[in-house]
């Protein structure tokens, strides 16, 4: 088993890095380029960029940011938010993305994941699932940045997404996101028991206890935003504990 990958999550609105709480209530953090270079120098394993408004307005500002970033940053970059067509995906790869993350379009367009993985290879396709708890050990997949209930059960949808050719799952707990109260390991275990592809777990990272648990449960990767952006932790310190 290789070490858990630590992936700073960069939510982007217009040209700013922002932080959300439960995927809502934006606060501006700063210049994404500067902050991303800092994470790279501090040995982040990958970077994750999500355009928070793209899926509402059908536009994407992130491609410019990552294209500029690729001059200085040499780690894998995943980009998501508002990717609805093969062309959208292609333009992201051309801008310097190594993987793309899709949520809304993957749910709404029946063959989207199949077509993406056929065209670009499974390894570059991440299914992003925003999970909202509805009862004990049951979660619903939300779309449009946590605004809309898709009606799909998270575990069922994870299985189907993997079958359709997704190479990885970005699994975010909406309930815990921005709260620092800890990752939802129940959610991870429930999905992990059903799919064989790697899972990036996110939403609520807030303590070293999370790291110990993640290690014990063989979590593949962690997506962390607020805890890093607000400097509660540094990547170097986190990696020392792994």
């Amino acid at each position, binding site marked *: 088993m*290789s*070490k858990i990958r630590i992936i700073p999550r960069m939510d982007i609105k217009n040209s700013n890095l922002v932080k959300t709480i439960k995927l809502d209530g934006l606060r501006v953090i700063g210049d994404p380029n500067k902050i991303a270079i800092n994470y790279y120098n501090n040995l982040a394993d990958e970077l994750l960029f999500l355009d928070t408004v793209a899926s509402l307005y059908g536009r994407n500002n992130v491609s410019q940011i990552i*294209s500029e970033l690729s001059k200085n940053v040499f780690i*894998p970059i995943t980009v998501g938010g508002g990717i609805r067509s093969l062309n959208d995906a292609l333009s992201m790869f051309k801008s*310097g993305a190594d993987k793309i993350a899709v949520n809304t379009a993957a749910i709404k367009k029946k063959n989207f994941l199949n077509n993406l993985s056929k065209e670009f290879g499974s*390894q*570059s396709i991440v299914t992003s699932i925003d999970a909202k708890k509805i009862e004990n050990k049951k979660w619903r997949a939300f779309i449009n940045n946590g605004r809309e209930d898709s009606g799909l059960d998270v575990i069922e949808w994870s299985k189907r997404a993997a079958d359709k050719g997704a190479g990885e799952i970005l699994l975010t707990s909406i309930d815990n996101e921005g709260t620092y109260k800890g990752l939802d390991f129940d959610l991870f275990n429930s999905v992990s028991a059903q799919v064989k*592809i790697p899972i990036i777990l996110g939403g609520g990272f807030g303590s070293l206890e999370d790291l110990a648990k993640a290690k014990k449960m063989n979590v*593949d990767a962690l997506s962390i935003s607020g805890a890093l952006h607000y400097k509660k932790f540094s990547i170097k310190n986190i990696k020392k504990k792994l």
Partner: protein
Amino acid sequence: MKKKIISIIDYGVGNILSLSRAVEFNGYKVRFVNNPEDILCSNTIILPGVGAFKRGMEKIKEKNLYEAIIETSNKGTPILGICLGMQMLAGESQEFGKSKGFNLIDGKIKLMRLNKPNKTPFIGWKKILVNKTTNVDFSINKNDSFYFIHSYHFECERKKDMTGFVTYGDKKITAIVCKDNIYGYQFHPEKSGKSGLKILKYFLDLK
């Protein structure tokens, strides 16, 4: 001094922007090539690639690049395959039914059957061990690790072609192939931070 120009083969797959930036970062110029003439007059060639083997080879052939790549490598021009580009150097792949590669290094591409908790695709950073019998010095430091993302691996016919390897659980997986002027990196040097830039430079500096 004029900067050496590195040709990156652009056949429509993967993130070649990052690769070109990594080459430029090392002080070289980049030219994207997608026709046989440009390949034949290249001095150093990188064959990138991600995705499925069969689709990759089809795209190479659609653009009429197959013969030019073989001819150039026969002349002794340094050529580096990265990820899928490395796997395409092999004789054949068993991904989605058999398909033929460039056969520049004897071997087969096979699905990795990893034991838990390792998953396929394997995604993550690994340290590379260099085969002691090789005389190629990549100057890899003890702490250098490299970014891998793949489900298939290169099974070399001859042990000595497997210049570097990584271990996933109890499995030994080829990380570097090397035979004369032909090089292949299974990992992404352009995505492996400073260690990656350094091992990419090793190849770029070849005369």
